[in-house]
Structures are given as C-alpha cells and as structure tokens.
C-alpha cells in the first residue's frame, strides 16, 4: 500500500512549525544574545533542505511571538526582551568555549571555575 503524502502546503506548514520550534527553543534557552542576527532565511532553507518560503514562514511566526525583530537591511535579530544574555557576554562565552575546547579543558571544570568566580565570596 502506498503511503498517502499530505498536500504540499500542509507539509510546508509542518516544516515551518518545526523550524519555528527549533529557533524558539534556542532563543529561550539563551543560545542567542540580545540583538544577535539569526541566520539568513536562505541559509536556514539550504541547511534544512526546505524552500525559502517555508523558512520565511517560520521567521514570521517568531516575529509574531515577539522573539525576533525584522528590519530591512538589518536582518532578523533576537528581541532584547527574549534573550537571556547580552551580546558582549555571549561573545565572551563563545570565545571561552572555543578556547577551552582547543586547550582540551573539561567543560565541567570551566563551568565550576566560572561559578566560583561569580559567587559573592570570590
């Protein structure tokens, strides 16, 4: 028996919701800094093997939720109210993660030291 494929429009909506959920999860978890640019619609579409329209639909849903702000020429950026950390802190954290990986440091040790440095006694 041949599996029945849903109509193209329905499949596109389903993919758009998947993409929307993935990005929403990342934003809420603090993966993006405030005002950080999301990948271009084209990049997301290419990476996931979907049409640009589908990716754009997902971005529109994020915008409707107030998670991102889209401006002409400035691209789609994470809304300051939705981000967990500022851009400068995020940049340093990424640099630290990269440096730790290249130095072969255990991530747990790095986190422990960070906690120690951030504690009121230090």
């Amino acid at each position: 028996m041949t599996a029945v494929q849903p109509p193209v429009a329905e499949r596109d909506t389903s993919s758009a919701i998947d993409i929307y959920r993935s990005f929403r999860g990342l934003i809420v978890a603090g993966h993006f800094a405030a005002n950080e640019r999301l990948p271009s619609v084209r990049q997301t579409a290419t990476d996931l093997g979907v049409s640009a329209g589908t990716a754009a639909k997902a971005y529109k849903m994020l915008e409707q939720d107030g998670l991102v702000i889209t401006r002409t020429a400035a691209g789609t950026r994470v809304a300051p109210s939705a981000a967990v950390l500022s851009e400068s802190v995020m940049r340093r954290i990424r640099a630290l993660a990269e440096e730790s990986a290249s130095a072969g440091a255990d991530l747990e040790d790095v986190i422990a030291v960070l906690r120690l440095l951030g504690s009121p006694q230090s």
Partner: protein
Amino acid sequence: MRLGNGIGSIDVAGLLWSTPLFSLALAVIIAPVVIAFTRSRVRRTATVEAPPAAVLAQYAPEGRMIAAWGAVMILVLAASTAIIDYAVVGQAIRWWRFTPGLAAATLGLAIVFGLIVTRGTRPPEIPALSPVRRHWASFSSRTAMTATVVVAVLLVATTVFGGLTSEMDSDGNWRWLALPIVNEPGIDPIRMNYYGWTFGVPVLVALTAALGLAWVALDRSAARPFLRPDTVDAERQLRRQTASGIHTLVVAAMLFALAGAWRMIAEVGAVRELVIGGDAGGPYEVTWRHADLAAGLAVAAPVLEVVAFVLLINVALNRILPSVTVAAQYAARTNPQRSVVSS
C-alpha cells in the same frame, strides 16, 4: 672582498637581490622550515577526528585545485619575471607588468569557486540546523583576514601614490617621474621610468577582480549546507582549510604585485641626489624628496617576494587533505533525526 673583475661581493649580493628569481631560490630554501613548523602546529592543535570518506570526497577537488594552483602561480610569476627582465620584447610599455600574479589568482579562484558550487555542494543527507549566521568571513582566521586587508591596503596606497606623483609621456602613458633641477628652473626636469597610472590602473582592476572572486568563493564555501550533523566539525575544519588556501593565493599575488611596484619606485630612489656639472659654471642638483622612502622599499621588496613564494610553496606542498585510509578509521556516527549543531 672583491672578485677578479673588480666586482665586489656586495655588488653581487645587490645584483642577486634585484631579481625576483633569486627570491624564489631563497624561498625554496626557507619553505621546508616553514612547512615543518606549520605541520607540527597543526598536529598540536588538531582536535577534530579525521573526516568520513564521503566528506573528504566532497571537499577534495577544491583542496587539490588550491594546491595545484599554488604551483601554477609559482610558474606564472617566475615566467612573467623572466619575460619582463630578460626576454627581448622591445621597449614597448608593458602595462601588464605587475598583473600576472593577480590575473593568475583570479583565474584560479574562479576555478575553485566553480568546484565549490558543483562538486563541493551537496544537499544535506540529514538536515542540520545551524543557528549561527555563516558568511564569507566565518571560516577565515584572524591572521589571514588581517594579512589580506593589510596587503590590499598597501597595494592600493602604493598605486595611488605612484599614480598621483607620475607624469604623462609624449605617447599619453603615465609612466614618468619628473625630477626637477632645483637650482636651474629653466632646464627640463630629468624623467625616469616610474610606477604611474599606466601600470597602476591595470593593477587596481586585477586586484578588484581577485578580491571579488576571493569574496565570492569564501561566501559560497561558507553558505553550503552541512552533510550531516555528525560531520559538521569535520566540515568546518575542511572549510577553514579552503578559506586559508583562498586567502593564501590572493595574498601571495598581492605581495608579488606590491614587491614589483616597490622595486620600480626604488629604482628612482637610486637617484637620491644627482649633481651634474653644468656649462654655466654651477652644477645641476637633482633631488627627490621621497628618495629615502624609495631606498627602504628597495630592501623590503625582495622580502615580500620571498614571503609570497614561501606561501605558494607551502600551499602547493602542505595542503594535502587527510588520506582516505585515515578516514576509513573514523567511526562515522549517524543520527536519523534532524539535529541542531553548534555552528
């Protein structure tokens, strides 16, 4: 020390330094040391496992082409030097004199770009959502970016300086530098061959083409999708290699063009202060206020050529992708579901 025919060893050294082919010979001696150093550094810092064979096969054509083009560019630069310096081609103004390296780099980058688009880009087997925006600079090291910008700025600045200080000859070629006789305003200035607009404009056009192609190739290399979530780290490493090769080709070409321009300007600097006995009693005094700068360029130009050749030898010999035998040892991990990757 003076040789039998009265030529001193310093004269011989100066004569050798005056040809880019001597720079190539020096580079051949220096390159093995540089390659040994960079290889040991790569071994120390390599943290990613060997890529799977499918990934290697995807990136191998562009890697091989960059390596092969490094060798091609060495031949082009050596051949163009030989033609310009030694071949009898009359006194015609060779406006293309400083462009062969840049033109060769442009052609090579166009081929690399073609390989990235055709053989280096595949639809993802398992989609990997990359939350980080990728662009032309995503896989370039800070050193490579800085070197590219600095050398490009130096080449443009030299070309504009040369153009602005040049004069037109009777055939309409901007290729003279006029050195006025300071104490005899009535006498025509001495005119010398110079890096004017006639040579500079083709360099600017070729430079724009080379940098444009480099930008397009880097951007296209960064934008292509990853094959699978488990190959992202390996692919990132291979894209860094591709970006490094692209930067090397364009930087070497720019360095060689810059060295040629500096050599030509330095030739004028040799006339630091010329005093000619005049009929009217007093000598004619000729000075160029940039002569000291030109003398410095004479020393720096061969150094730039040596660096350019070392870079090209390095890219030709050292840019060999990890062998498939190593890749076979890599335990390819597969993930049946769409994944989010950290890059």
